[in-house]
C-alpha cells in the first residue's frame, strides 16, 4: 500500500501545481486560458512539449514491445522520432508560431480556414482530428486505473484509480488551463526523465549486472534474436519512420507550438528533444529486453511460459486459446512487475509516480479538444459574437468536464484492446494528414478542395483498415495471410500485428496517396485570392 500512498501524494502535488497556476494568473480571455497568454518560457516550453508527447506507451508500452520484439523497438519508435520530430518542430512549429503571433490563431483549423478561405471544410478537418484524439484520453484513464491497481497490489480497484486520475487531470486542466497543464507537464517530464536512469541502476544492481543477463539471452536461439532485428523486416522498419510525422499534426502539439513567448524558445527544444528521447526510451527498451531473463519474477515467468507455448505452434491450440495466450504473454506491465520484485517499497512508490506521470499525459489532449471545440465550433458558428469571450472560456471549461467524464465512463466499460488499436489507427491517420500542413505552409498552389480530398481519404482509409482487421481475424505471431495477390506479389496481407501493404505498414501508402491527392486536386481547383496568399507567402521581406 506504501507505493500507492506515494502515488496519491504525487497526484496531490500535481493538483496543487494546476490550481496554483489558476490563482497566480488571471485567465479570463481565450488566449490566457487556452494558450497561457502565448508566454511560456524556454524551460517550461521544452519540458512540457516533450512531456505532452510522451504517453503511457513511452514507459509501459515501449518496455512491453521490447519484451516481445527485442532491441528493434528503439530503432522503430525512438531514434526515428529523434530525427523527424525536431526537424518538423523547426520547419513547421516555428512557422505555426509566427502565424499565430501575426494573425492570432489559437487552433490549426483556424489557420486552415483562413489559408484556404473555407468554413465547413475546416469543420470536417476538426471532426476528424477530434475523433482521432479521443482514444488517447480514454487510454490514459485506463492506464491510470491499471497503474494504481498494480502499484497498490490490488488494494485500489481499477474503477477508483481511473476516477482519481480523471478527476485530478480534469481539475488542473479546468482551473489552470494551458499554463497549469504546461507546468504539470514540465514537472512530470522531470520525474519520468529521472525514472529511466533510476530504474536502470536499481534493477541492474539487483540482478547482478547486465553483462550476465545479455550473455544468458545470447545463449539460446529463441532469445538471441531479441538482441538483433531479425523479428522485423526492413520494409516494416522503414514504415515506422512515417509515424513521427504524426506528431506535429496532433492538435495538442500544434496548439502547444503557439504558447511560446519568443520563437527562440524552439531552439533548445529542437536541440534537446533527441537527448530527452534517449534518456527515457533507452532504459525502458533495454529493461524490456532484459526482462526475458527474469524467470525468478513470477508474473514475468508466466508470460514467458505463455509465449513458449505459443511458439510450439501446436495445432491443437484453438484460436480462442491462442488469443488468450497472446494476452498472457503481452509485456505492458513488465516494468511494474520488475519494480514490485526488485525495488524497496518506497522506491517502487516513487517510480510508480514516474509511471503515473507518463500515463497522465492526456491533460493536453483534453485541453486541445476543449480549445478546438470552443474555437472551431463555438466561436466559428457565432457563439463568441453572441455570448462574449468570457462565455467562450467557460464553455471550454465545461467541455473539459464533459470530456473527462465521458472518457472515464467509456474506460470503465470498454475492453482495453479496442482503444490500443484505435491509437494505432490515430498515428497513421495523423501522419496521413501531414501533407495538409506542408500544403498550407509551403505550397501556394494548395487549395481547400485538395485539403478536403486529403481529409476524406484519411478518414476512409482508416475506416477501411479498421473494418478489414475486424473482419479478418489475425493469424498466429510470425505468420501472415495474403488477402490480395497480383501476379504472385502479395499486395495486402493480414499479419498478427495488423495489415501490410506490399510489406509496408498502411501508414506509408496512406501518407503518399494523401500527398498525391493534395497535389492533383489542388492543381485542378481554384486557388485562394492573391490577398490571402500574400499573407502566407509575402513577396517582399518586412525588413
Amino acid at each position, binding site marked *: 500500500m506504501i507505493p500507492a500512498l506515494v502515488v496519491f501524494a504525487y497526484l496531490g502535488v500535481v493538483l496543487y501545481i494546476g490550481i496554483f497556476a489558476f490563482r497566480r494568473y488571471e485567465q479570463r480571455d481565450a488566449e490566457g486560458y487556452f494558450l497561457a497568454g502565448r508566454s511560456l518560457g524556454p524551460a517550461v516550453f521544452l519540458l512540457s512539449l516533450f512531456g505532452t508527447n510522451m504517453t503511457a506507451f513511452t514507459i509501459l508500452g515501449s518496455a512491453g514491445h521490447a519484451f516481445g520484439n527485442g*532491441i*528493434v523497438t*528503439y*530503432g522503430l519508435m*525512438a*531514434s*526515428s522520432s*529523434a*530525427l*523527424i520530430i*525536431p*526537424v518538423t518542430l*523547426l520547419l513547421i512549429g*516555428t*512557422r505555426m*508560431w*509566427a502565424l499565430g*503571433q*501575426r494573425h492570432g490563431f489559437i487552433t490549426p483549423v483556424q489557420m486552415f480556414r483562413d489559408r484556404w478561405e473555407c468554413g465547413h471544410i475546416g469543420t470536417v478537418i476538426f471532426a476528424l482530428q477530434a475523433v482521432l484524439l479521443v482514444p488517447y484520453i480514454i487510454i490514459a484513464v485506463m492506464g491510470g486505473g491499471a497503474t494504481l491497481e498494480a502499484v497498490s497490489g490490488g488494494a485500489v480497484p481499477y474503477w477508483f484509480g481511473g476516477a482519481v486520475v480523471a478527476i485530478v487531470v480534469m481539475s488542473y486542466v479546468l482551473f489552470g488551463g494551458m499554463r497549469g497543464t504546461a507546468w504539470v507537464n514540465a514537472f512530470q517530464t522531470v520525474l519520468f526523465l529521472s525514472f529511466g536512469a533510476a530504474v536502470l541502476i536499481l534493477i541492474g544492481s539487483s540482478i547482478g*549486472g*547486465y*553483462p550476465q*543477463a*545479455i550473455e544468458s539471452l*545470447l545463449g539460446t536461439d529463441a532469445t*538471441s534474436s531479441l*538482441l*538483433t*532485428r*531479425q523479428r522485423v523486416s*526492413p520494409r516494416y*522498419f*522503414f514504415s515506422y*519512420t512515417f509515424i513521427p510525422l504524426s506528431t506535429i499534426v496532433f492538435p495538442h502539439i500544434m496548439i502547444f507550438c503557439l504558447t511560446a513567448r*519568443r*520563437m*527562440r524558445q524552439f*531552439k533548445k527544444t*529542437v*536541440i*534537446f*528533444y*533527441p*537527448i530527452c*528521447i*534517449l534518456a527515457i526510451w*533507452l532504459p525502458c*527498451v*533495454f529493461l524490456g529486453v532484459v526482462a526475458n531473463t527474469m524467470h525468478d519474477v513470477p508474473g514475468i515467468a508466466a508470460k514467458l511460459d505463455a509465449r513458449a507455448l505459443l511458439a510450439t505452434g501446436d495445432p491443437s491450440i484453438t484460436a480462442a486459446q491462442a488469443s488468450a495466450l497472446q494476452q498472457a504473454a503481452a509485456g505492458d506491465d513488465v516494468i511494474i512487475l520488475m519494480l514490485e520484485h526488485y525495488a524497496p517499497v518506497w522506491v517502487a512508490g516513487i517510480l510508480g509516480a514516474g509511471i503515473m506521470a507518463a500515463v497522465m499525459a492526456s491533460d493536453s489532449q483534453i485541453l486541445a479538444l476543449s480549445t478546438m471545440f470552443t474555437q472551431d465550433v463555438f466561436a466559428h458558428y457565432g457563439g463568441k459574437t453572441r455570448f462574449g469571450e468570457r462565455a467562450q472560456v467557460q464553455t471550454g471549461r465545461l467541455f473539459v468536464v464533459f470530456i473527462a467524464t465521458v472518457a472515464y465512463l467509456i474506460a470503465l466499460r470498454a475492453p482495453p484492446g479496442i482503444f490500443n488499436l484505435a491509437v494505432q489507427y490515430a498515428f497513421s491517420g495523423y501522419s496521413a494528414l501531414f501533407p495538409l500542413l506542408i500544403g498550407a505552409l509551403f505550397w501556394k498552389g494548395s487549395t481547400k478542395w485538395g485539403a478536403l480530398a486529403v481529409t476524406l481519404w484519411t478518414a476512409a482509409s482508416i475506416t477501411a483498415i479498421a473494418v478489414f482487421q475486424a473482419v479478418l481475424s489475425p493469424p498466429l505471431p510470425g505468420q501472415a495471410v495474403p488477402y490480395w495477390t497480383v501476379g504472385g506479389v502479395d499486395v495486402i496481407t493480414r499479419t498478427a500485428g495488423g495489415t501490410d501493404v506490399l510489406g509496408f505498414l498502411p501508414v506509408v501508402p496512406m501518407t503518399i496517396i494523401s500527398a498525391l491527392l493534395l497535389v492533383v486536386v489542388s492543381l485542378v481547383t481554384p486557388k485562394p485570392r492573391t490577398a490571402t496568399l500574400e499573407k502566407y507567402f*509575402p513577396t517582399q*521581406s*518586412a*525588413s
Partner: protein
Amino acid sequence: MRWWLALTVVALYGLHQDVWFWNSAEPLVLGFLPIGLFYHLLYTVVVAGLMALLVRYAWPNRLEREAETAVSRLADTKSSSREVR
C-alpha cells in the same frame, strides 16, 4: 536551409535504415549493449548534434523578425488605444 544541411538531414534519414547490423548482436559494446542498439544510441546523439547545426545555420530569422515586429506593433496599438480612452 543551406543545401549541405538539407543533404545531411536526408543522409541521416537514410542511415536510420542500418541493414548492416540487422542480424548481429555482437560485438557487445561495454560488454552489454548489442551493436544494433548502440548504433541507434549513437545515431540519436549525432541527430542532437545535427539539430544544433540546424538551429545555428538554418534558423528562420526572417520569420522571427516579422512575427516579433507584428507583435510589438500590436502592443503599441493596444497601449495607444488605452491612452485615447
